[in-house]
């Protein structure tokens, strides 16, 4: 009988390795299908860029002195960052739930915070990788300058964190793929298309300008764009506070859901 030895071997050896392994698995999961998870959104963003720039350049008035094509690029990058961060955590969770393999993670000693951190980091990295790829490809077509790189990074990071967290909530809540599709089609898509990706909200009637201020995506797009041009529809500090605040609120909700075992542990 060597129970003592067995117990000893199974003791807490490395508390960091657990969440790191989960992050690594989540990264590999999307990287294995990078054609679908990275290349596809890059192509989509480029198509938007080519078509909208071609059709609308010269017709739409944005900021003074900023050509429409140049205006469009940061918005498209940020929209893709947000959508992909959401897609990463939400699709991983719903797939694992429907396939039943989430049980392998639920059986481990990982804490709710470690679980959250791993899924969150994977979503942020997916968002940033997609954003960076679009930036690099768009760079070949459009002359883009970055006025304030720190703001660009801060918004990309916080925006993907916010949507990654929202994706975790959606993934925990949804039981079926059609429920997840409803999240995508009725929340994420409308909010991102109505956020000012393709226009400056100053070109909208006053009522819709006001409505835009209730759309969290507006702050992320506008703040990110501010980093490129040094100007935007509102102050980047306001945007940063709204996005940071929203992230904190959603993160706390997510942690509470995970801690209580909502929908994951009966």
């Amino acid at each position, binding site marked *: 009988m060597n129970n003592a030895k*067995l117990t000893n071997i199974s003791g807490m050896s490395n508390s960091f*390795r657990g969440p790191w392994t*989960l992050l*690594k698995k989540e990264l590999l999961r999307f990287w294995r299908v990078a054609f679908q998870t990275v290349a596809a959104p890059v192509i989509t963003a480029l198509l938007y860029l080519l078509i909208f720039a071609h059709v609308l350049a010269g017709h739409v008035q944005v900021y003074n002195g900023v050509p429409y094509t140049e205006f469009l690029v940061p918005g498209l990058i940020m929209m893709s960052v947000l959508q992909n961060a959401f897609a990463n955590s939400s699709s991983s969770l719903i797939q694992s739930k429907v*396939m039943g393999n989430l049980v392998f993670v*639920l059986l481990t000693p990982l804490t709710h915070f470690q679980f959250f951190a791993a899924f969150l980091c994977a979503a942020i990295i997916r968002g940033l990788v997609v954003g960076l790829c679009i930036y690099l490809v768009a760079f070949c077509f459009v002359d883009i300058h970055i006025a304030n790189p720190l703001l660009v990074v801060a918004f990309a990071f916080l925006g993907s964190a916010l949507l990654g967290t929202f994706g975790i909530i959606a993934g925990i809540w949804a039981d079926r793929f059609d429920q997840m599709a409803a999240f995508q089609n009725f929340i994420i898509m409308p909010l991102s298309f109505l956020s000012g990706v393709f226009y400056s909200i100053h070109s909208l009637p006053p009522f819709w300008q006001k409505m835009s201020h209730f759309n969290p995506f507006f702050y992320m797009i506008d703040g990110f764009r501010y980093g490129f041009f040094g100007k935007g529809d509102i102050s980047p500090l306001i945007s940063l506070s709204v996005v940071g605040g929203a992230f904190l609120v959603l993160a706390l909700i997510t942690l509470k859901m995970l801690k209580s075992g909502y929908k994951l542990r*009966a």
Partner: protein
Amino acid sequence: MNPAIKINGIHKSFGNLHALKGIDLTIEQGEFFALLGPNGAGKSTLISILAGLIKPTAGDISVMGFDVVNQYQQARQLLGVVPQELVFDPFFNVREMLRFQAGYFGRGKENDAWVDEILEGLGLADKAHTNMRKLSGGMKRRALIAQALAHKPPVIVLDEPTAGVDVELRQMLWEFIKKLNREGHTIILTTHYLEEAEALCSRVGMMKQGEIVALDSTANLLNKFAGKKLRLTLGDVSLPNNIQSLLRHQEKGIFTFALTDMAQIEFVLSALKAADIRVLDMHLSEADLEDVFLSLVGKAS
């Protein structure tokens, strides 16, 4: 030495359904324990509470002294659970999955030798680099078991591990699990195959409708409930009333009696003779767990 598993007054209700009605059970370290019971008896619910997948309504469970709710990190380190459902992650191959699984428990490269041992022991070595999706059903089952063992847990729970599995795998699996048991791992098994429990387990718990109805060593249970089985081929007859109570089973003119001592053989035969019923064939055998099981829970299932 703390028991491998200590279950204290566990209750679980799902709405109006009282699935577990106060389970008390202690399993010592190094035991090979079988938990038997018909579908819906509450075996899997109990295992899910043990694994932290379901929260108990009342009561507590500890694994080697660690509470599965309040000290879940330590408890889960010590526990390896093979889920009943055949689930897998389609993105990875077998070795990757095992490395990930061990990694979640804080184990790194130093664990690779153990992963190799599991792959070898479960006949998965040549499938190590095969994607989970491409494995046959039997191979997926092996991979599922391997995943539960990846962090070398001292307490191993197998929930119906041989459901729908061919004979070869069952043999291989039990050889490997027996070896782990000899090395000091505690094994808890739920199964529908009673002969497996009888052949492998030193102690058996039987559940029925959320309660434990029998808990004893396999040998004691066999002795206590039915010493011998007497199978008589009598044809289309009606039995005399005085031996009806010993009858366990009747099919196509074959009557099976459960006897607690040898004197009852004579009693049955003389009753038949008195009723002028001719015995066409006779077979006497040792009772098995199935008889115990049927006498305890059979009517309910």
